[in-house]
Every structure is written in C-alpha cells, then in structure tokens.
C-alpha cells in the first residue's frame, strides 16, 4: 500500500494523472448487449496489431522469383515470389506461425464484420443524430479503412487467389476514363503484375493505413467520451442523464474481460479452423485460376456488383473507350457509400431537429429510417450474394444465368420490397406497443362471468414497463410556409416533400389522458 501511494504520487507530480482519473475514473457507461459490437471491433483490432507484428518478423514482401525449397512437398521446385515463399514458411516452418496467420486473418474478418454490425446498430437506433454526426463520419472512414487494410493484407502472400484479386483491381483501374492505363502502370510499377506491387501494398498495410486507422480510432474514442454514450429509453433514464456502470471498477472489469474473451474466441477459432490455405492455391501466375474464386467476405459486395452487370456495356466515343460494365458498379458503390456517410446530415435536414439526442431509438419507432436501412441492407445483400453466384449455382444445382438474374432482381427491386415490408412491420409493431401500453397484455387467465361469458383477463403493465413503450419522439411533416419575403422556395418544397414522405405514416405515443380514460 505504501508503495502504491508513493508510485501514484510520483506519477501525478510529473503528469497530473489525478486530473484524468478524477474526470474519467467514474465516468458512466450505459449497458446494452448491442453496445458491445463496437468493443468487438476495437478489441479485434488490438488482436490484429499483436498478431500482425509477429507476422512482420518473418514475412518478406519481395517479389523476386525463387524456387521453393520448403517442407511442403507438392510445391517443391516450383518458381514463386519470395513473398509467397515466406508466407509458406510462416505456415509450415515456424512453430505458432500458422496459428498467428490464422489469428490475424480471422481477427481481420471479425474486425470488418463487427464494424459493419456496429454501424447497423448506430444507424437503426438513430445514435448518429446530433451531436454524433461527425463521429458517424469518422466511423464510416474506419469502415472503409478496415476494408482497405483487409484487401491490402489479403494480397500480400502473392498466392494465386489474391493475385487474381489484384488482377481484377488492375482491370477496374484500367477502365477509369482518361488516366486508367497510367494509374495502373504507376501503381504496379510496370505492366501488370510487375515486381513492385507487393512491397508497395506492404508499406500501405503495415504503416500508412494502420497509422491513419489508429489516429481515427483515437478521434472516435475522444468524441465518444465528449458526447457520452447513448442509452436506450428506460425508467429513470432521460435525455439529460447517463445511467450505468462507472469506468472504475465495473466497466473496466467488464470491458477488460471482454477484450480477453474476444481474443480468446479468435485464438480458439484459429486453432480449430483453417482460413486462407494459400498452399492449396499455389503461387500467382496470370494463366491458371481455380473455379469458385471469390474474395474475403467484406469485398464481396464490390465483386458482386461487377458480376451483376448485363453484357455488352461498353461504348467507344471519338476513339476513347468507356467501360460502363466497370464504371457503373464503381460509381454505384461510391454513391451507395456516400449516401451511408452523409445520411445523418440528410435526416437532420429533413427533420430540422437541432436538439441533442442521447436516447437510442427503438428501430420500430422510426419506421421510415428503419425501412431505408432495410432497403440498404437488401441492396448490399444482393451484391454480396452475387459474389458467390457461381457457388450458389453449383451447390444448389441451378444455372448460373438463373442465379444472376434472380440476384439482379434482388438488388434492383428487392430494396423497394424491403422498404415497404419493413415500414409496415414497424408501424404494426408500434400499434401493438400502443395497444399493450393502453390495455395491458393478455395474462392467459380465462374467467367465466356469472352470465356464462368467457373473457381473458388483461394485466396492466407497471409504470416502468410502460415507459419503454411510450417514451419516443413524435414528429409531423413540415408544412410549406412562405419565408420573410413571402416566397416559397424550391428548396423548401423539396424539404417539405421529403419531410412528408418521412413522417406522414406515424403512430402517436400514448398520452396521459388516453391512459387515464382507459382506466375508467
């Protein structure tokens, strides 16, 4: 104890650490299972850093051609790049090397997956609203960076599968108008594949991109602390308080323990299940390719977009080639991603709501937003499934043409269907909530009245339970009104139209008056 006191004093006199402890030590974090998704992302990133550092000690990104002399018999004597050779050596010669490769790859898959789910949680609960719009944008950039890190890392072993992935990137870059051939030439340092791309991607993968990612994670965390975490509606919880566990000790123990759980589960998966068996693919060679080629899951939506384009979309105008079959998916995906990044600002404009929101909404209580989200998810899912179109066809014994046409339908029409179904389901759930808040729930107790009539007794909710069902925000569409100079601007008409679309179907929360009139 005396030592602790001495050490604390020593540090504080040199760093003023007590100020930080005072400010943050008892900071409150609300509790909900969905709040762990972001934590999973953060912790799997730490696992990626640790396992990746181990890998850099053994990996050599050179593309110099050598003959394989390692212990894996089927590849002995085959020419390959040093990068592929050293990846094989990590897998086959170094104790724990294969484990670390698999930990790194599984953690990367989990990293992107948990970021995606975390974004969906934030989107569907409206946790991106003021004051968190900027943090949403930072999170979006983290998502894009995670995919970029995943793709660059996946390319490093220089195996046949990842080489074909780079070939596709090369083909897409070449389709870029005006500068495509040049960008590809400079990126690869020669004609494809060249001997520079792996070392270049290596620098991006282990230095530049992680540095940006760490900086953005820092900004993400700082804003999380400044804004404080959102919480779900509940008795005693308001927009002006945070209810939950203090950082010291409960949250620190839970979060710290959770880091070890995430790490442990990743290592468990890596010790039991193979991922990316590069020795089966062979070294990169532009001529062979294996059937069933597909990228890691998070690049699937981009690959699927390429697959869904109908044939013959290319035009030559004044001798210059426009490859619509690549440009349409490319631009389409950029628009989709931009819409996701900018959504908070669009919604804020439509609602005109400039208040701060700290209560996470239940998705049903904002039917239009939830329906938009469902449409986006369906669009993404259509593209994503298309990246496995050939495997779907072979596994389910369907024709590839049929699968592609079905997925074209899912991607183009599916979002609209998902939108309408989701919106109706949300409204129905809101009606159901209203019904339960007013009349209570069916208790299952059947009573026979003296007159012979049977009724089921409805049990009223207690005030605490009811609060969860009635405490949501209500909005109404914006009315078009002339401004100070008596004009109605086109901008205002658009805004009113969007607002009407956003809010015209709505269920009002139960009021005190309604509740009381029910009771008598």
């Amino acid at each position, binding site marked *: 104890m005396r030592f602790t006191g001495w050490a604390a004093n020593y540090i504080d006199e040199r760093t003023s650490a007590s100020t930080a402890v005072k400010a943050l030590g008892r900071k409150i974090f609300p509790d909900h299972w969905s709040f762990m998704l972001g934590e999973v992302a953060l912790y799997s990133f730490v696992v990626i850093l640790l396992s990746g550092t181990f890998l850099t000690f053994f990996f050599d990104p050179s593309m110099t051609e050598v003959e394989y002399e390692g212990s894996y018999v089927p590849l002995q004597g085959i020419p390959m790049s040093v990068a592929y050779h050293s990846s094989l050596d990590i897998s086959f010669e170094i104790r724990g090397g294969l484990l670390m490769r698999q930990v790194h790859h599984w953690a990367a898959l989990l990293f992107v997956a948990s970021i995606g789910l975390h974004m969906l949680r934030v989107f569907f609960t409206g946790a991106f609203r003021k004051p968190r719009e900027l943090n949403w944008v930072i999170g979006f950039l983290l998502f894009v960076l995670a995919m970029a890190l995943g793709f660059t890392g996946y390319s490093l072993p220089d195996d046949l599968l990842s080489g074909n992935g780079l070939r596709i990137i090369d083909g897409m870059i070449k389709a870029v108008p005006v500068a495509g051939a040049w960008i590809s030439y400079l990126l690869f340092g020669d*004609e*494809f594949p060249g001997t520079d791309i792996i070392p270049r991607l290596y620098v991006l993968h282990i230095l530049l991109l992680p540095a940006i990612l760490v900086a953005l994670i820092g900004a993400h965390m700082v804003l999380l602390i400044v804004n404080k975490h959102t919480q779900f509606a509940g*008795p005693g919880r308001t927009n002006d308080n945070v209810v939950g566990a203090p950082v010291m000790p409960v949250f620190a*123990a839970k979060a710290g323990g959770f880091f070890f759980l995430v790490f442990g589960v990743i290592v468990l998966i890596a010790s039991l299940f193979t991922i990316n068996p590069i020795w089966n693919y062979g070294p990169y060679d532009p001529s062979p390719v294996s059937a069933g080629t597909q990228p890691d899951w998070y690049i699937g939506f981009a690959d699927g977009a390429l697959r869904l384009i109908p044939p013959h979309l290319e035009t030559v105008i004044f001798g210059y080639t426009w490859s619509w079959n690549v440009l349409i998916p490319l631009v389409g995906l950029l628009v989709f991603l931009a819409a996701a990044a900018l959504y908070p600002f669009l919604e804020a404009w439509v609602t005109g709501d400039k208040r701060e929101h700290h209560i996470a909404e239940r998705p049903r209580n904002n039917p239009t937003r939830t329906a938009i989200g469902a449409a986006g998810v369906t669009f993404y899912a259509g593209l994503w499934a298309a990246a496995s179109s050939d495997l779907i066809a072979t596994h389910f014994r369907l024709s*590839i043409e049929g699968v592609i046409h079905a997925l074209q339908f899912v991607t183009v029409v599916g979002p609209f269907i998902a939108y309408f179904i989701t919106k109706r389901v949300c409204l129905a759930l809101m009606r159901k909530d209203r019904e339960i808040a007013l009349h209570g729930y069916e208790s299952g107790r059947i009573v026979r009245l003296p007159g012979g009539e049977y009724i089921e007794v409805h049990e009223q909710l207690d005030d605490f339970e009811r609060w969860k069902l009635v405490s949501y925000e*209500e909005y109404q569409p914006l009315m078009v009104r002339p401004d100070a100079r008596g004009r109605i601007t086109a901008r205002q008409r658009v805004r009113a139209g969007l607002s009407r679309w956003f809010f015209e179907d709505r269920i009002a929360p139960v009021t005190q008056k309604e509740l009381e009139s029910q009771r008598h």
Partner: protein
Amino acid sequence: MADVHDGATGGEAPETAVEKHSSSAPSPGVAVERADRIQNPGFPPERLRVTDLDPKKEKAAERTVSGLFLLSVVGSVLAVVAYVAFPIVEGQPETIRLNNLFLGLGITLGLLGIGIGAVHWSKALMHGHELVEERHPTRGSDETRAKAVEIFQAANKESGFTRRSLVRNTLIGALVATPIPAIAIFRDLAPAEDPVALLKHTMWEEGVRLTRDPSGTPIKASEVTIGSAFHVIPEGLAELESHKLEEKAKAAVLLMRLPLDRLNEREDRKDWSYDGIVAYSKICTHVGCPVALYEQQTHHLLCPCHQSEFDVANHAEVIFGPAARPLPQLPITVDEEGYLVAKSDFTEPVGPSFWERAL
C-alpha cells in the same frame, strides 16, 4: 465578427458563434411536444443479486473467479508446453496441425480464463448499483464561446490576417502550390515508357510456336483432338530472364478444335484457324481474369471470376455476364514440321479495356 450577425436575418436561426437568444432551446424542428405526455416514472426499485443476499454464494463466486484466473495460468503454461512438446517435424505435415491445435488451445485457455473471470467478477461481486451522471450540452458555455471568439479576434488583430489580405492570399497560394512537387515525384513509380504502347503488343509474332503452359513444349496440330483444350504460351516465354509474368499476362492463349460444321467464322478471318483449330486470348475482356473453364459440349468458355461466357463456335462473342467484347483471336497456322505457329500478333489489345484501347 459576431456582432455583424446581431439580430435575426430571417429564415433559420443565424449560425453565429455567439447566439444572443436563449441557447438552451435549440430548434426541435418538426418534433411534436405534447403537454400531456406520460411522465418518466423514475428509477425502479433495485433488485439485489444472490451474491448480495447470501454470503455463501458470495464466497462461492469469489472462489469461481480466482479458479478461473488460475485456470488461465494453467492455460498459458500448457501453451508453452505445447510449443515444446509438439514441434514441427520435417516430412510430417500432421505435426503442423498438432502444433497449431495445442498451442492455440493453450493460449485460448489462458485468455478465456481471464476474460470469463473478470466479467464474472464484475457481474457477481462488484458493487452492482447503477449510477447516474448528468449530461451537459456539448457546446461550450456562452462564456467560454465568447472567450474563444475574443481569442480569435485578438489573434486576427495582432496578426492582421484579415486586414493584410495580400499576405494572406499569397500564403494560401503558396500552400496550395507546395504539394505539387509531392505529386510530381511519383512519376518514377514506373519506368519511362508509355504504358499504352506496351498494352497493345504481346510476345506473339509471325512464326512463334504455340507451346504448352507451363512446360513450353510445342504443339502439333494433329495432337489437338476435338473436345480438348490446350493452355498455351508463346515459345520462349518460359526462358525469359525478366518480365515473364508480365508477358504471360498478355500472351496466354486457349487452343481448341471444333468440328468444322460447328465453327462459324467471319469471312475475313477464315484463314486465322487451322482445320477447325482456333486460338483465343485467355485473358478476359472484362477485368482480366484467365478465362479458364472450357465446356467441350457447348464450346463455351466461362470466366470463373465474374462468369462471363464466350461462345467459341461464334468468334468467342459474349453470350452472358459482364464482359463487353469477344476474346481477341490469335491467327494461327502450321509450320513445315506440323507445329502450330502464330501468323502474327493479336490484331487488337488483349485483356481489360482501357481509355486509349480503340485508338
């Protein structure tokens, strides 16, 4: 700056650093605020845990937690034991699996022991009450903001940033210009040649033999039977000292023989085939994957990356999938020894499209 916007300018609230009207009520937009909404009932009564009520259970939980931490120590020790006890033995691939499995399971136990222990500790034993913290508006207080504006104004006055517009504008110009060298120095990422010229030529030229990939042995026309497909590289590619893969990425070819009555050829390309044997570029015209799958009954080629289908019987035209153009055809014939040779290079660039392709 702030007093310029003093007073309402009409429309929406003026977005100034210092707002004169009450800052505590930002616009609710189109939100409805009802007077008779149900009131927040406040916190529900707290429910105690078994460990709060029963000292025996508390003691048991304590033992469980420390047991889990001890298990973690055991796991970490086992991992080191596994590292030594399951070495990788050359010539025995199954030892890699065992090393991976037991090392991994040991580390897993070490990690999960701590994880489960810590979470159990926090849930069962640590003080379980929920605490409440007040939120404050994210914006700084009016006083702070006024101070910040004052600082900016003072800085502006002392430096003359706004007043000395010539200094400011030339500075902006200089800052915009400085990154230009940073862009320029990336030109040498690639050699000085023009990539467009390179993309338009391959190793094929008149008299170059078609050879098998990867062995490089030449192919006799008589060896190409109906239904078979050969993966072909130009003679000499395997012996290249440099740029082997770059040349292969352009020159890879598929060779097939079709029954003469099935082969539909364009009038001007009748002499590009030899006795029903045709050679097409193997590099997909979509984004450049090898079009490696040949269906010998229908004579269709399928690209395994994005499922473009090409009909070899019909000048390799696109019949399905995202590709836009047919695969380029390599004109072939036989030399005096009966080996298949190219009559010339491809007559158009192979592989994915690029801006200057058709020029």
